[in-house]
């Protein structure tokens, strides 16, 4: 080797020095948010980036296929689709936001999770694309679109409808001598005793990461706290969480777990607990309608459960003070980056995603309910899905997931506190004390 390798240090040095300079120069400049142009482009071309939380092998292929189809129809468009898991998504999207690196289209839960992006000017106003008066908006279930409404404007495309239900095995109920689903919490407790006597774990419960318990709390809060108070408290600017109903909800959860659920829930993943339910060891599990597919033969469930399962809402206590017709759930949706340079293309792709054909495909492939009108009328849909839709239409409103509806600090306090409650280390009063503290901090931050 004859060439002068001794020059390398100097070259490297120049490289590093440039980096250093860039470090000084590139500071805090943030581009002012301007509304992107959402009108349909004359010539559909360019690159769109999109991030979802649907990395699970059963969900991912659907989104991949929609993207592929769109690219096929519009050969000059390249969509960079990235799908991450449910839990990592919460971290990831914040990191991308901080990094000023949000994709053109990104997933969001309804509630404060979405509102945070909206308040920070990171989500584009989509009223002109999917508002109630638009062609697309008329195709969508109003309750679903409303979940992504903020100060009268529409910011998100709802892609599915999701509700939380106690799914149960018909065989287990029969063996325990239970003829019909319980109508009150008290009846549920009695049924649990019967199921235990018949050799079942009444409710399979895995609470690793804490959110499964929060879904119970979401529903029980809605049952026990008057709707107005709930609205006020879930808003970070006015939240106080002093209503006695909150403590009552946690007491009911504690009683429910003691009487019905397996122990050691904090050490078990929700999915691991689900294996017990599907495997026939447990009689019930509190799951989202989005998960119903796993109970069907198509979803890989054994015939013992696939041929004989149904669902009911977590029943309210007979003295519930809140709205007993509210249902825990919400649509998931997609937001568009307010700083996107491909607003028209993004809007066009969302309309494509919400086309009747793609919505029907989603219902068929994933077993999800779609807010798109007429999408459920497809061949081969399992009967429980239609029943779910009927039940949802009876719900007075959606009680949005507690971990996404409130301020991140309040959600964290709830998450940690309820984990302690499940593990037997916290009392309901302990939990609410720390939630109240977090709410005060959140108020201070928001105002």
């Amino acid at each position, binding site marked *: 080797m004859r060439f002068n390798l*001794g020059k*390398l240090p100097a070259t490297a040095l120049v490289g590093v020095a440039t980096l250093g300079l860039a470090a000084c120069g*590139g500071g805090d400049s943030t581009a002012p948010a301007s509304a992107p142009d959402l009108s349909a482009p004359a010539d559909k071309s360019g690159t769109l980036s999109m991030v979802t939380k649907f*990395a699970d*092998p059963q969900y991912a292929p659907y989104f991949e296929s929609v993207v592929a189809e769109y690219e096929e129809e519009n050969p000059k468009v390249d969509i960079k689709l990235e799908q991450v898991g449910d839990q990592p998504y919460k971290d990831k999207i914040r990191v991308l936001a901080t*990094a000023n*690196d949000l994709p053109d289209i990104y997933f969001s839960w309804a509630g404060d999770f979405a509102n945070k992006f909206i308040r920070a000017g990171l989500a584009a106003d989509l009223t002109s694309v999917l508002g109630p008066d638009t062609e697309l908006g008329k195709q969508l279930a109003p309750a679903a679109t409303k979940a992504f409404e903020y100060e009268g404007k529409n910011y998100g495309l709802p892609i599915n409808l999701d509700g939380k239900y106690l799914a149960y095995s018909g065989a287990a109920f029969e063996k325990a001598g239970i003829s019909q689903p319980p109508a009150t919490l008290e009846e549920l407790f009695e049924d649990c005793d019967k199921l235990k006597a018949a050799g079942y774990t009444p409710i399979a419960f895995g609470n690793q990461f804490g959110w499964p318990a929060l879904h119970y709390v979401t529903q029980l809060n809605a049952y026990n706290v008057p709707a107005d108070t709930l609205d006020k408290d879930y808003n970070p600017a006015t939240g106080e969480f002093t209503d006695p109903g909150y403590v009552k909800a946690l007491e009911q959860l504690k009683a429910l777990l003691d009487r019905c659920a397996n122990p050691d829930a904090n050490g078990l993943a929700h999915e691991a607990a689900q294996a017990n339910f599907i495997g026939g060891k447990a009689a019930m599990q509190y799951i989202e309608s989005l998960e119903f597919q796993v109970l069907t033969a198509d979803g890989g469930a054994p015939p013992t459960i696939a041929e004989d399962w149904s669902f009911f809402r977590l029943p309210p206590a007979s003295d519930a003070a809140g709205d007993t017709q509210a249902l825990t759930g919400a649509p998931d949706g997609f937001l568009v980056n307010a700083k996107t340079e491909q607003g028209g293309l993004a809007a066009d792709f969302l309309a494509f995603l919400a086309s009747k054909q793609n919505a029907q495909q989603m219902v068929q492939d994933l077993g999800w309910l779609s807010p798109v009108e007429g999408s459920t009328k497809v061949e081969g849909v399992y009967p429980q899905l239609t029943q779910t839709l009927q039940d949802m239409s009876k719900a007075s409103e959606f009680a949005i997931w507690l971990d996404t509806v409130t301020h991140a600090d309040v959600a964290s306090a709830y998450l940690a506190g309820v984990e302690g409650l499940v593990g037997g280390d916290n009392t309901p009063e302990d939990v609410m004390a720390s939630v109240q503290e977090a709410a005060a901090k959140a108020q201070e931050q928001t105002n």
Partner: protein
Amino acid sequence: MTKLVYETVDAEAPAGPPDRAPLRQRSPLVLVLTVIGKLLVWGLLAGLVVAIIYPLLWMVLSGFKTNQEVFGDPFGLPGALRWENYQTAWDQGVFKYFGNSVIVTVVSVLTTTLVSAWAAYGLTRLDLPLNQGVLLVILGGLMLAPTVALVPLFRLLQSLELFNTYWALIILYTAFRVPFTTFLIRAYMIDLPMELDEAAKMDGASTQQIFWRIILPLCRPILVSAALLQALFAWNEFVFALSFISDDARKTLPVGLLAMQSRLTTDWPVVFAALSIAAAPMIILFLVGQRQFLRGLTEGVGK
């Protein structure tokens, strides 16, 4: 002293364990105590072997099982060698993460070793102005931990547009390991006789030529050790990889495995298979390069 260290590590000790006094001279009580003592000692040594080997064996074997076998019979052997689990793990992401880890590890091993060797050369064999100051700055880096720099690095990498790139990891792995690696190589270089350089200079060799042709080849043993330790570090690094790579397609194994675990919560055998694949390269590298590993470690720590 330094170079002798590793020889003593693996050199056959001059004698076996010291002989004990003949047992018959002792009272029965002492005899019993001796036996109990021996049992305890061997119990500890053997127990630790089991405690280390068993989980690893369980990991590898569970990778061949079905879900039912993992749940129903965790202690048992797999009913068949289901290589397809390993295949699935590979296809479900391990391949991708493995490739990323290889890229980041190989490049950062090269950059770290080279940059450190340059620095060590400048520090030990050239008439460097402010030599002591430079040494202090470089070794001072040993006292600064990655976690402490997390928040500012996040901003820095964003403004340099390095966030979410391989370069973010390569540069950080290099920067944070230059102090240790320089320290290691410097200790070795400083013991090479200066006559080598002087003789080469007489023959008309430039500084560069002396470095590349004479000093670097002579440092080969410590360079290998340094490279191995850097590989171990880069392959297993977690904090930076977690914080500064957001794109699943660029994740390295330690972070990718975590993502896989959360994705495949119910497909236990595949996760076990993925773990086994991820652990294998460094264990094999360690078994092959044991002597070099130990030399690097003991010199890094024992000087």
